């Protein structure tokens, strides 16, 4: 019996350049930047002034006041993205399909913004007690659990924490689960709310955040720009989607993941290359069949040449025919949400017939000599695409998407 094919039937996203997927598609097409002066914390205390915040966000537009007070911003983003994705897939709360569904979410830092506020009360203000909501708001599974509560999902619900690969791993796990018949429906993705003083100062100390903007693969790149987001997708067997009569937005056909076993923060070429090879093998496609890669492309000194070398190692001379771009240049590095936001972005762009650009690109770097779609989106399509995520801790993940099943 051949394995089940897995369809994506719903997408949801909220990030610095869009509050939903319709806006996201147009922002990607326009090459719009969500990188702006940080407003959520006092940026004068930081060495970097810019971030990719979700602006104009009002929790009360999405949640009852009491619920909003019990759910951290990162989990709110997860819920908002899941609602959009489930709505597009035509699935109502408490639907029979959800009873045995799975939710796999990714988050790197969970509700540490809430924790940070509590610790300010405790350590700085000398308060004798802190809120009992810190524990349930901070837990990394808060987003997944909230979606489960709201929709009545009773199957396997869990959260993957693999730093910047978290939601790529999450989608991969959900994909495998649907493909092997463990779940008939999956809600998968990730979310992150990055902007608290403690988190930002910790990133500052890593010396990988750009003092200006994110310029992936560009010779003058100066680091990543932190972002926040929620992004989710609905997965189900292709045949089930067709039987329900819902549009198939893409198929997920392969997932690969690997560990560098080398260093906490220094990337290798071999680890990412292995994840990419595993994803291709899992999808049963040759490297030459891939037309577009949404790169991890952080804009740091170390990532971009290493990722270029990994792609060249796997794709050989075919790498020169590949279209590669980093949408982080627009929506920032959303950490645990990155894999999902970038997979969602890839599906939106390819379906709309364009390759999203790498904006803020100013000069070629011979060590990053791929076609990175500089600055302006390009019309085009791909039968198969990839989305890469590589994390601190040496954890690599890659998804293969297929277009044309509908």
């Amino acid at each position, binding site marked *: 019996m051949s394995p089940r094919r897995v369809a994506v039937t719903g997408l949801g996203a909220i990030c610095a350049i869009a509050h939903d997927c319709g806006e996201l598609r147009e922002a990607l097409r326009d090459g719009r930047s969500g990188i702006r002066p940080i407003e959520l914390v006092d940026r004068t205390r930081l060495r970097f002034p810019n971030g990719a915040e979700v602006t104009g966000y009002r929790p009360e537009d999405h949640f009852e006041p009491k619920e909003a007070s019990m759910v951290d911003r990162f989990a709110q983003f997860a819920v908002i993205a899941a609602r959009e994705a489930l709505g597009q897939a035509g699935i109502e709360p408490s639907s029979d399909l959800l009873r045995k569904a799975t939710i796999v979410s990714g988050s790197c830092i969970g509700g540490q913004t809430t924790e940070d506020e509590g610790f300010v009360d405790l350590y700085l203000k000398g*308060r004798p007690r802190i809120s*009992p909501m810190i524990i349930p708001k901070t837990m990394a599974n808060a987003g997944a659990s909230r979606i489960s509560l709201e929709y009545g999902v009773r199957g396997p619900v869990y959260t993957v924490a693999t730093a910047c690969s978290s939601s790529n791993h999450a989608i991969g796990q959900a994909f495998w689960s649907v493909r092997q018949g463990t779940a008939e429906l999956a809600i998968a993705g990730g979310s992150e709310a990055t902007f608290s003083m403690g988190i930002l100062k910790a990133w500052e100390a890593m010396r990988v955040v750009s003092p200006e903007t994110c310029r992936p693969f560009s010779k003058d790149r100066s680091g990543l720009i932190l972002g926040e987001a929620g992004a989710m997708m609905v997965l189900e067997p292709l045949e089930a989607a067709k039987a329900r009569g819902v549009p198939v937005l893409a198929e997920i056909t392969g997932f690969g993941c690997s560990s560098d076993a080398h260093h906490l923060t220094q990337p290798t070429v071999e680890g990412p290359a292995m994840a990419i090879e595993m994803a291709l093998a899992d999808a049963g496609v040759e490297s030459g069949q891939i037309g577009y890669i949404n790169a991890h492309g952080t804009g740091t000194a170390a990532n971009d040449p290493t990722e270029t070398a990994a792609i060249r190692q796997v794709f050989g001379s075919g790498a020169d025919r590949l279209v590669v771009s980093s949408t982080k240049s627009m929506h920032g590095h959303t950490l645990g949400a990155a894999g999902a936001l970038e997979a969602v972005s890839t599906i939106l762009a390819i379906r709309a017939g364009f390759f999203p650009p790498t904006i803020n690109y100013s000069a070629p770097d011979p060590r990053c000599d791929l076609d990175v779609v500089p600055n302006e989106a390009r019309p085009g399509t791909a039968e198969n695409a990839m989305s890469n995520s590589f994390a601190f801790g040496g954890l690599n993940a890659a998804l293969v998407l297929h277009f044309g099943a509908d």
Partner: protein
Amino acid sequence: MPDELAQKVIQCIAETQHLEPEKITVDSTFEELGIDSLDGINILFALETEFDISIPDDAAQSIRTVREMVEGVAKLVAEKDTPESPAQGSD
């Protein structure tokens, strides 16, 4: 039961639960107000902050009505206001 203290307790419950204070009386039960165990500890946190008291865990588990809550808080406030009370703190 001191009315002013009862009103403050009701205000804490109203703010924590996002309820109208007019809908809460000292005779309301937590069940009537839809207050579950997690809501309960949130209210205790608000009361501890408002009255600068420390509510022991065993008391927290047995309270089921607004009246019990007001009485419990009144007792702890009275103990705090007694100079020899250990709950007073040394500084």
